[in-house]
């Protein structure tokens, strides 16, 4: 607003404040930094799909030619497919277990005030900050001491442990804005306890449940350290891929598989994010 009285003031301030600021903006440092940052983060990731289409076994420029044969060969590799099935089993069971546990824990954290609530919440979140290698080695020792041989079961137990913080956080945000009188209102209108859960509670937190299932599945599917220690002779996909990297001839197959997994992970996380936002909006 240029009122007559403020104009002289604005003029007086112009040379002192406005000009230097404009000069400093001439070279867009912030933009350069942002681009450099993104390149550093994502270029290596983009190289993976790029070389998966390269007609040659050596991963180096210049590239030889375009091929889809590395993708085509994937279907014929039995051990790889077995590893894939293992990962799907571990991921699905982990997702179901972590999400169910997370659902109950989150409901309790949000709804009730009880002794040791903060301590319990801290303990549940702890796996986020404990180095995976420590968790993995101590779990291996523990399971062997218990007589539990390394297998998919032990991998699942380990993965539920690391996936739980994600499930709890997501379900907590789903329950955070859930007004308790919604359940009372349904009950008051003649609905049964189970009917209230089915017609009110479940639909309102459903987007959170879906988001939690997807995220915990992804966490498990990508996890390497625990799976490496605990899987024994039933490797999950990341463990299998790691074992293949030592053979140069197998590397392009691994790149092709890696690209597919990358795509799947991104798609899953996008879907999860979509549901998480929907759950926040509706509550």
């Amino acid at each position, binding site marked *: 607003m240029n009122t007559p009285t403020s104009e002289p003031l604005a003029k007086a301030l112009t040379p002192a404040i406005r000009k230097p600021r404009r000069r400093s903006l001439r070279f867009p440092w912030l933009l350069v930094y942002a681009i450099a940052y993104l390149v550093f983060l994502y270029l290596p990731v983009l190289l993976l799909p790029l070389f998966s289409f390269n007609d040659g076994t050596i991963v180096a420029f210049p590239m030889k030619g375009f091929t889809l044969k590395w993708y085509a060969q994937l279907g014929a590799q039995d051990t790889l497919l077995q590893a894939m099935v293992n990962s799907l089993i571990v991921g699905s069971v982990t997702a179901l277990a972590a999400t169910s546990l997370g659902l109950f824990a989150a409901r309790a954290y949000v709804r009730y005030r009880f002794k040791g609530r903060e301590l319990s919440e801290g303990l549940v979140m702890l796996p986020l900050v404990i180095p995976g290698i420590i968790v993995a080695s101590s779990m291996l020792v523990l399971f062997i001491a218990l007589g539990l041989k390394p297998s998919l079961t032990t991998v699942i137990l380990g993965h539920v442990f690391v996936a739980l913080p994600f499930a709890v956080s997501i379900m907590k945000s789903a329950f955070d804005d859930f*007004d308790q*009188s919604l359940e*009372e*209102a*349904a009950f*008051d*209108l*003649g*609905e049964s306890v189970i*009917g209230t859960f089915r017609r009110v509670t479940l639909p309102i937190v459903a987007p959170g449940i879906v988001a939690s299932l997807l995220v915990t599945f992804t966490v498990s599917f990508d996890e390497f350290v625990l799976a490496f220690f605990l899987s024994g002779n039933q490797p999950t996909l990341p463990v299998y891929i790691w074992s293949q990297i030592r053979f140069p001839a197998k590397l392009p197959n691994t790149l092709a598989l890696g690209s597919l997994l990358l795509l799947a992970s991104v798609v899953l996380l996008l879907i999860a994010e979509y549901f998480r936002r929907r759950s926040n909006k509706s509550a």
Partner: protein
Amino acid sequence: MTRQNIIEISGVEKRFGSFIAVRDLNLSLKEGEFFSLLGPSGCGKTTALRMIAGFQDHDAGTIRIDGQDMAQIPANKRPTNMVFQSYAIFPHLNVGDNVAFGLRKLNLGKAETDARVAEALEMVELGGLQSRKATELSGGQRQRVALARALVMRPKVLLLDEPLSALDKNLREAMQFEMRRLQQKLGITFVMVTHDQYEAMTMSDRIGVMFKGQLKQVDKPEVLYARPCSREVAAFIGGMNFLDASVTAKAEGKLQAQVQGFGPLAIDVNPNVTRRGTKLLTGIRPEQLEISAKKPEGYDGYLQGTVTNAAFYGENVHYHVTAAGVPQPIAVSVPNYFHTVDHQQGDPVWLGVQNASVIDLGAREA
């Protein structure tokens, strides 16, 4: 046909640990009555409402609705429905499905359900908004949906927990009249919990005033205002000047008493008061006092004092007057007829009062 008591509450008590939220609650509500439970926050009024609704068990006593003991009957089987303070509109359903929520359980068939939903929405002036999303409603519309969703069940008693507290002032006043009109049209018993004395007075047939878990007085609004049973009830409803008095004689429903500042007055005995003694507490409403620069004619008691505060409230003007022998300033409220503040701070004034304006509040404490 005589009106039946739709709700009979006797000796009801509720404890949370060692805290007694509601003690010895006795209340009978007639069919078609608009009843309000009024009290400050934490007085137990919401707990009382939730016990009638069935969200809370009572530890002692009985609650009967329409003659039936409610002890073993859960909220979803009671002939009551509730309008929640937060309205509790189901966010994942549209307006029509919100209102039809309870009807779905009754298996009425689609035509009947749709007709009743349409009728209920028409009643709260939201006709034709069935497909509107719950998240797109304004505060006033949410309140109406909550009302329609409860009324569509045709409850014997509608329970309302601070139903208007989330609305702004103008909307609240409009809804007060609308809810009263609706209640009179339907003839359903309404039980409302509120901390707002004006809301309670404008809407209710009778009001129950609660303090610290106890129901202190149940009366019509005008009786509650004119004959409060105690100092705390008198102070909670409207403004009140409290003046000490000593009883000199008692005859024919009148107390002859020497009232602080105003001298000898003849006060009607208040039948609602239980505590008796010679050390009397009296109350005078600020709007029942005459204020004038010269001694006004035709009053039973007079007081000379000085204006210490004059405040313009729009519809009326409030004065504070101090006088010798009266420890606290006396509040006077005068209707604003001529858009003027007649007395300024420091002006000497006369106050006049009629015998009938002095309220007997029983023996004063200690």
